[in-house]
């Protein structure tokens, strides 16, 4: 029988969402539309329409050594063209944001090629070649992995994921990169590192509480699904904890 990955344990909606996001065969729900130019503006790595600066000549112009690994692994478009390595970084509020750092890293590793994710408690960065990044960023922004209010695209000064939300439901951002307008639409007015944009970039309306609760991958005992209710998940974590503790003592039979 062919191997079928399980992606993760758990019987709760949160566990199911985690599995859905990680499974590359599951098509992520596209909930908004953002143009390529808008993505380039938010990333702030190059001016829209400008050529991709390169870190090395295109692979076709280089004398590649005869290497079985190179024949086996096809380069991504960005690697082929010799693009620079650039990044996008996300901050996800603990109040039912659709994704969270570890989840993002797992999801990206299953779905994207040629990436280098960095996972921290309150933020997650992914680095890759520039034109690959723009393609991946578009998917990360347009799909159910992002909520305009609870997710921030923040290259620096990321503080806010564990703070209370603002009155209107936005996650705290010291640099106020995104603003909720009176029309209920969130616009990015600064790029991810906090430099003002020439024009606001429309991201869309924040999702409502019910949608967030149905799509979140974060357990939260006060505003969402409590972790303690997912007994299968707890059993799995306890098993891992127990095994790694025992392994720490190097048990062996005399």
């Amino acid at each position, binding site marked *: 029988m062919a191997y079928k990955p399980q992606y993760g344990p758990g019987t709760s909606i949160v566990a199911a969402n985690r599995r859905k996001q990680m499974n590359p065969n599951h098509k992520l729900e596209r909930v908004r539309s953002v143009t390529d130019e808008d993505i380039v503006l938010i990333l702030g790595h190059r001016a829209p329409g400008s050529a991709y600066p390169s870190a090395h000549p295109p692979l076709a112009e280089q004398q590649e050594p005869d290497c079985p690994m190179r024949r086996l692994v096809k380069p991504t478009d960005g690697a082929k063209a010799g693009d620079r390595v650039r990044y996008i970084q996300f901050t996800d509020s603990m109040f039912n944001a659709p994704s969270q750092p570890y989840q993002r890293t797992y999801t990206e590793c299953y779905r994207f090629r040629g990436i280098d994710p960095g996972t921290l408690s309150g933020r997650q960065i992914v680095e890759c070649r520039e034109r690959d990044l723009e393609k991946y960023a578009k998917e990360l922004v347009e799909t159910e992995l992002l909520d305009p209010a609870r997710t921030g695209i923040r290259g620096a000064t990321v503080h806010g994921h564990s703070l*209370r939300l603002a*009155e*209107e439901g936005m996650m705290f951002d010291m*640099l*106020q990169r995104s603003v909720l307008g009176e029309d209920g639409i969130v616009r990015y007015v600064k790029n991810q*590192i906090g*430099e003002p944009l020439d024009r606001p970039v429309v991201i869309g309306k924040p999702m409502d509480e019910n949608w967030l609760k149905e799509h979140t991958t974060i357990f939260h005992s006060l505003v969402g699904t409590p972790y303690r209710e997912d007994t299968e998940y707890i059993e799995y974590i306890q098993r891992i904890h127990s095994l790694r503790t025992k392994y720490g003592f190097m048990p062996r039979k005399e």
Partner: protein
Amino acid sequence: MTDATFPQVRIVPLRLLKPTTAESLLNKLASITGVQRILIRGPGLPENVPYGPARGNPNPHSDRSTIQVVDTEIALRVQVGEVILEVENDSLIAEIQSICDDFFVNFPYQIKTGRFMKTDPTLVDYARYGPDADPDLIGLADPRSGDRPVIIRTK
């Protein structure tokens, strides 16, 4: 520090307040007779980007504004997350609670009594204000910022 210890209350709303909401709340609280000191706390909103690639650039932020409390203008440096009050006696706490009950209708809040303000000057306070600093003003402003507490006069 002063020998007398006055009751203190801490009001923590479930959401970070906008300047207009904070202004409205502070006006209600400041007009209570017997409120001696008020401290507002929350995450900082600096005028310039403090670190990262855009360090030093101006940081326009709609929540860093000036609010009017009674007759005094206060330049907010934080997004208001909690309000700590020192009052003359315990009987005022019920009044504060009833004001908060009427005020926070869109989201809940918590109110606690205890000691929340700084009781002794720290080394930084000493370096900034010297040995003869007014003990009532210790802890009401960030000694590193150079700002001083604001005095509100009520009738």
